[in-house]
């Protein structure tokens, strides 16, 4: 077929043709891991669609042949370059005819050119004529029965880099509920007790993808009636101290050599090493997304007005479900900001960065009520002392120990290797030590 490829271990094409997501699915097939059956309409078909304003000739016939044997499917976008959340996804599509498939593929291809997607590409130097692939895959249902669910998993902890699986799981629900943050999730570890077979399969999958990519990996998975399915894989993507620890550990495990470990860390990863962090080992009651780095300790205020009033007597952490213009005075008065909703581009995150205040957003198990909040199952009243870490997204009660990453053992290890490479053991800034090693390694 000219425009369509069946997803299988034998498929031998690049991410440029298949898109990154489908390319990852082929890797999962090759590793012998369970992937729902599917096919991909190539980026080339998308480029033809964008150029001519209609799907290319011959695709209709190919779709009619390809949909044989499929019943309910998802149709997802997937370009060669990741553009998270920018394009359409169609779930639970009943593939009754080639026309239904055609309409869905057109919808995904058209979403390449929404103004928001165009803006994203302008800002990230992604060519407008690249196009996206469309992946048509049998739906698996995390909401099928008591032994179904969905989740995301990292092969190592993305906050600290420790070599333990990390992630979130939702029992009895579909995948988009995890990604959208619309339902509170449980720690990945809960799978071990409730679905030991799924858990064992997931651990096996994480170790195989890590061995393949020779890097920490992220996967999205669903289990249906006790059977595990992998829906996406992505290597790397860790930042800061976690990236440093993973690179140093992989070198010590013999997976990569020390030079590669050094080259995997950008001096930009070290930019925040002097930013304070909550010390490891503190009792983390909840976790969200770090939106502005730094640690803030203060008494909880749940409205802008109380934040302003309480700030007269000392530091305040403004705790809100989400922020609105009503909160501007409270945000200005607060030392740190904690919200239940929102991502790194939410109103609260934008304002926190504008004001240079540590912020944690998108804490799924935070509920703010009148003059109190429930965090990670514990009720805390207004005035309670809390600490937030705007790098890791951690929330701790009271005032925990605070450290900087320069005291971090993996970083010191990595920088010793850097000095060995550059031959310069003088006292310098961390980023300079790494840059000197890079200069030698890239010579």
């Amino acid at each position, binding site marked *: 077929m000219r425009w369509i490829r069946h997803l299988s271990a034998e498929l031998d094409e690049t991410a440029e043709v298949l898109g990154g997501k489908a390319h990852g699915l082929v890797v999962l097939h090759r590793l012998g891991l369970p992937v729902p059956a599917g096919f991909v309409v190539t980026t080339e078909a998308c480029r033809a669609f964008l150029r001519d304003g209609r799907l290319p000739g011959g695709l209709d016939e190919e779709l009619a042949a390809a949909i044989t044997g499929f019943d309910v499917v998802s149709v997802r976008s997937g370009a060669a370059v990741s553009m998270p959340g920018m394009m359409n996804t169609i779930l639970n599509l009943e593939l009754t005819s080639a026309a239904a498939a055609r309409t869905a593929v057109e919808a995904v291809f058209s979403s390449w050119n929404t103004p928001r997607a165009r803006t994203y590409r302008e*800002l990230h130097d992604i060519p407008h004529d690249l196009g996206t692939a469309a992946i048509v895959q049998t739906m698996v249902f995390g909401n099928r029965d008591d032994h179904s669910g969905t989740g995301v998993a990292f092969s190592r902890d993305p906050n600290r880099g420790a070599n333990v699986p990390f992630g979130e799981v939702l029992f009895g629900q579909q995948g988009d509920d995890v990604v959208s943050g619309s339902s509170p999730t449980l720690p990945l570890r809960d799978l071990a007790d409730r679905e030991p077979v799924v858990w064992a399969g997931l651990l096996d999958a994480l170790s195989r993808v890590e061995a393949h990519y020779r890097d920490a990996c992220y996967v999205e998975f669903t289990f249906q009636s006790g059977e595990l399915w992998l829906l996406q894989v992505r290597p790397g993507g860790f930042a800061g101290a976690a990236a440093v620890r993973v690179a140093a550990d992989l070198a010590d495990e013999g997976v990569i050599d020390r030079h590669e470990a050094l080259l995997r860390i950008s001096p930009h990863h070290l930019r925040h090493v002097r930013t304070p962090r909550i010390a490891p080992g503190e009792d983390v009651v909840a976790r969200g997304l770090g939106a502005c780095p730094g640690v803030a300790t203060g008494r909880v205020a749940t409205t802008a007005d109380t934040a302003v009033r309480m700030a007269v007597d000392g530091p305040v952490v403004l705790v809100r479900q989400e922020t*609105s213009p009503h909160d501007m005075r409270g945000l200005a008065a607060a030392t740190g900001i904690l919200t239940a909703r929102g991502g790194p581009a939410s109103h609260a995150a934008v304002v926190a960065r504008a004001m240079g205040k540590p912020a944690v957003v998108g804490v799924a198990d935070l509920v703010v009520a009148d003059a109190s909040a429930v965090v990670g199952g514990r009720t805390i009243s207004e005035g309670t002392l809390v600490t937030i870490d705007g790098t890791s997204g951690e929330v701790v009660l009271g005032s925990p120990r605070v450290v900087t990453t320069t005291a971090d053992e993996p970083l010191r290890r990595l920088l010793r290797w850097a000095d060995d490479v550059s031959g310069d053991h003088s006292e310098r800034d961390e980023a300079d030590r790494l840059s000197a090693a890079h200069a030698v390694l890239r010579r």
Partner: protein
Amino acid sequence: MSGPDLLVLHALRCVGTAGLTRLAATTGLGEPDVESELIDLAVAGLVTRNADFGVWSLTGSGRAAHAQRIAAELESAAARPAVAAAFDGFLVLNPELLDLCTAWQLRSADGVMIANDHRDPSYDARVLDRFADFDRRAAAVCAELASALPRFGRYQTRLAEALGRATAGKWEELADSTSSYHVVWAELHEDLLVTLGIPR
């Protein structure tokens, strides 16, 4: 047309507790006019002043009176369908504006998000250019709103002014100051929710 008393009442409902400067910017009225409206509203028991901080807020009955009057305004102008349609347009634009503010504050370097230190004029010019493009599409939504309810016209003016100041070199007017494009946009968001009676 909304009278100045309703404009001030509505501004307080949309921005929460606020001082004269903020209310003047939001309503487009002069500070003395805002203050005189506030005093009349306070006599009617609808607003109250916090003397410690010199700020005003709605009372319980002020909230109730506002809800009733703003709903009456929408119905008497038969503007609900048009405002609701424009709100749909707003919701399409909203994530893009937040992307743009984020891109102004942070940028990706070697796959790591770092603070934009504004030392790369070509990157900043690109973001500004996208803001200008965005503003043209935002202006179309604001124009729809203004033709349904004239008080919405104020947002188009304020957004254009913020962008103008940013383009003239006051960079904090995009995402960082209290008169920034982002803050005005967030106020418009709140206004639409309040006007249509949609809970957050």
